[in-house]
């Protein structure tokens, strides 16, 4: 085996150049198949297998390469294939399509229309990624490379200029200059709180101590959020490079990646990335002959949401129970093993190489006054184009939801968007033109959070949404502070009562008072934001609470205890479909007769509603 260790800056520069040339010279057709966790779940590995088999059968091995990459962001279209060099974008590819793709597209150079993406509104066929509405308004600075890189192959990362920021940092910049550059870029923590990254680094740099640590927070626990996972899966070296630069700036020689064990693919990719980086001499002692030492360890989280909080994470890495502690002392002064520690989120680390490579001036031109750069959001819920979107700060919610997201499926009305995960808030239609940045979202009663964005349509009950998030939080509160443990439990009880039609008007005042107290009295970020789902829904959707309490009605037809199912006689054809699926024998009636639902027997499971093809079941 040849020695692949890079011993100097020149070695690395040479390597980067060589790999980029290889990429340019390549005469191959490259089929990149998205295979993040979500792609794999949709069967992308089977597609890869089928493609490889077809290539072998047709003896095209020296002309065509199949690349298994991370997530391309467009979940709705998974598994998707991007065919370079023409950038052809095929969506929802099945193993049976492999034959056609190789025969028609690779050999005959024709486009297969049925695999192309069709716009929801216009029905237009789009053949390349950038033409699609979903990608058009995005600025994929951080995620973009996912399309080109095989995450398990470090050479691919070199080929897109990877680790050049590391060279620049180690060779040309002093730690202070790095911190200054990050400060000037205006980068703010992408984990939720939005603290200025440069300032955070400066605190850690200043802190006294010969041993310092950095931690990469990859404990992404928000329901419906998977930005960090995709970045770790698709481009793990980028995160590592960011960490190395940060470690150099702060003066740390050891780093931890705290990653949740529910992310097996990300865990595997980052493990391989660390091994490869070590083999290439990019991690370890005297990196590239610069005298800078750095090693990275992995710490696996056991699925506690609260461990995303800095001090709880430190406790967990140290082997203790994941419970937050009082700050100050801040981790920058006294963190992991009581040493100065700097913690940043995956996405924050992923932004660092970009700032070093392209400069703070370039970076700070993107975004708004207070929020710079791009932010990745996971756009999920009742939306046509589910997926990961990376947009410049300051873009409006409307642009993200309607232009990029393609609006609400089945022509339904938009009701609310929930940003920032369980600790965030629900914003109504009136706030659609709100520019997305840290301040404006906080002002509107929500938060930026880590970047979850759950879209809700008219059939979503906001009381039910608040109940869902409270249920999550009462489960995930660490339970130390009475305010958070008992407060979330009591809020859940009250909202549960309201959703069951047993609420009183006085409950709303109590709910508000309790929510304010929980927000005020709790120690950590979890408790301080736990009231947001309640407060924001009360602020914007109070009428829904009132109709649950006063009229005993759920306007959206969601809360089981308040709805009834009945048959609309005019629409019913007597097809027996509902009768067949009813698990509680509540539907009576013979073939071609109007059916009747016995309300006493009905368990409100909604099976008849789903089964009816004639819109003859009414939910009230």
């Amino acid at each position, binding site marked *: 085996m040849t020695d692949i260790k890079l011993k100097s800056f020149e070695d690395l520069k040479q390597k980067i150049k060589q790999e980029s040339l290889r990429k340019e010279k390549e005469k191959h057709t490259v089929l990149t198949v998205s295979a993040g966790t979500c792609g794999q779940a949709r069967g992308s590995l089977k597609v890869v297998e089928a493609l490889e088999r077809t290539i072998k059968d047709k003896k095209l091995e020296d002309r065509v390469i199949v690349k298994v990459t991370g997530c391309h962001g467009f979940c709705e279209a998974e598994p998707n294939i991007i065919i370079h060099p023409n950038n052809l974008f095929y969506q929802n590819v099945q193993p049976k399509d492999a034959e056609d793709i190789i025969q028609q597209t690779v050999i005959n150079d024709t486009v297969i229309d049925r695999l192309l993406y069709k716009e929801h509104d216009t029905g237009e066929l789009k053949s390349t990624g950038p033409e699609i509405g979903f990608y058009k308004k995005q600025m994929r600075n951080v995620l973009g490379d996912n399309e080109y890189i095989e995450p398990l192959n470090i050479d691919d990362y070199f080929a897109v200029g990877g680790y050049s920021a590391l060279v620049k940092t180690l060779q040309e910049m002093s730690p202070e200059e790095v911190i200054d550059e990050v400060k000037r870029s205006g980068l703010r923590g992408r984990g939720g709180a939005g603290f200025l990254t440069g300032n955070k680094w400066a605190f850690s740099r200043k802190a006294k101590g010969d041993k310092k640590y950095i931690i990469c927070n990859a404990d992404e626990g928000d329901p419906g959020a998977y930005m960090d996972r995709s970045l770790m899966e698709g481009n793990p070296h980028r995160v590592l490079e960011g960490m190395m630069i940060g470690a150099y700036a702060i003066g740390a020689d050891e780093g931890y990646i705290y990653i949740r064990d529910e992310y097996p693919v990300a865990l595997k990719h980052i493990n391989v990335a660390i091994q490869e980086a070590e083999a290439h001499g990019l991690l370890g002692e005297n990196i590239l002959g610069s005298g800078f030492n750095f090693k990275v360890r992995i710490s696996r989280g056991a699925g506690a949401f609260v461990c995303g909080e800095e001090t709880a994470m430190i406790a967990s890495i140290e082997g203790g129970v994941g419970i937050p502690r*009082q700050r100050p002392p801040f981790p920058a002064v006294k963190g992991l093993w009581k040493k100065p520690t700097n913690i940043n989120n995956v996405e924050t680390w992923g932004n660092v190489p970009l700032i070093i490579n392209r400069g703070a001036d370039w970076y700070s031109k993107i975004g708004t006054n207070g929020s710079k750069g791009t932010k990745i959001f996971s756009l999920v819920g009742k939306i046509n184009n589910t997926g990961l979107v990376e947009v410049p700060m300051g873009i409006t919610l409307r642009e993200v939801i309607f232009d990029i997201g393609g609006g609400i499926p089945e022509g339904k009305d938009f009701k609310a968007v929930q940003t920032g995960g369980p600790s965030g808030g629900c914003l109504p239609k009136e706030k659609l033109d709100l520019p997305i940045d840290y301040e404006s979202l906080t002002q509107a009663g929500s938060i930026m959070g880590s970047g979850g964005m759950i879209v809700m349509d008219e059939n979503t009950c906001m009381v039910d949404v608040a109940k869902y998030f409270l249920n999550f939080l009462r489960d995930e509160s660490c339970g*130390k502070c009475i305010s958070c443990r008992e407060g979330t439990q009591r809020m859940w009880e009250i909202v549960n009562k309201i959703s069951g039609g047993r609420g009183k008007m006085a409950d709303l005042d109590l709910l508000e008072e309790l929510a304010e107290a929980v927000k005020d009295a709790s*120690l950590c970020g979890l408790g301080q934001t736990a009231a947001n789902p309640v407060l924001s829904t009360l602020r914007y959707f109070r009428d829904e609470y009132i109709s649950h309490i006063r009229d005993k009605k759920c306007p959206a037809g969601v809360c089981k205890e308040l709805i009834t199912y009945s048959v609309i006689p005019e629409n019913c054809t007597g097809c027996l479909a509902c009768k067949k699926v009813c698990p509680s024998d509540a539907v009576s009636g013979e073939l071609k007769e109007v059916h009747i639902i016995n309300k006493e027997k009905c368990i409100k499971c909604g099976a008849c509603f789903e089964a009816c093809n004639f819109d003859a079941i009414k939910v009230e």
Partner: protein
Amino acid sequence: MIKMFINNLEVQAEEGWTIRDACEFYGLEIPTLCYNPGLSNFGGCRLCLVEVGHAPNTRLVSSCTYPCEEGLNVHTDTKRAIKARKMMIELMLSVAPGSKVIQDLASKFNVTQMRFDVRNEECILCGLCVRMCAEQMDGKAIGFQNRGYKRKISTPFDAKSKVCRECGGCMYICPACQARCQGPNAEDPVCNACLQLEPTCVDVYDEATCWMYDVGRCGTCVRPSEEESTEQEAGSK
């Protein structure tokens, strides 16, 4: 020495003091429940909340865990702090209405209503017993389990602990184990009997009829002084 401000007074605090320590030194009363001078600071009951910072960017912190800092601006009894404390008491009372300590707190802070469904769990998870066992008794026989609303205090695997010496330290320090007065409102979730100015009992009751026979006399009943009682005894003879 650290120079800081408490209620607009410039005070000096020693290195390593918490805000609560400083307040105690200067004679400012801060309500506490999970605090005990012989144990480490926990910060779970959130009763010792004080407001720190300069308006409008102030926040509530638990004074028993927040270290004194140079120039820190503290206000101990702001409306916001008191409102939060009262809610904490109501929450604790809703799970442990049988605790004398918490009933007393309720009376002291004028918590007069109970708007939650009472759940007689009796443990408020203040962690005093856990710290007592570990720090004073060197036992570590009990600890916290689970998180969120499922959190509880127990021995490992809920089995009899081998390190437990049955010293009773945990029971001694437990605020929820101190049974409430069996006064006139003994069945109500909120007692508030102490809020009444007049003593609950004007006459002296013997042990069999005293409200508080089980828990010990509260001392509110009108007792004859020692002289009077000896006189009475002499007279009767």
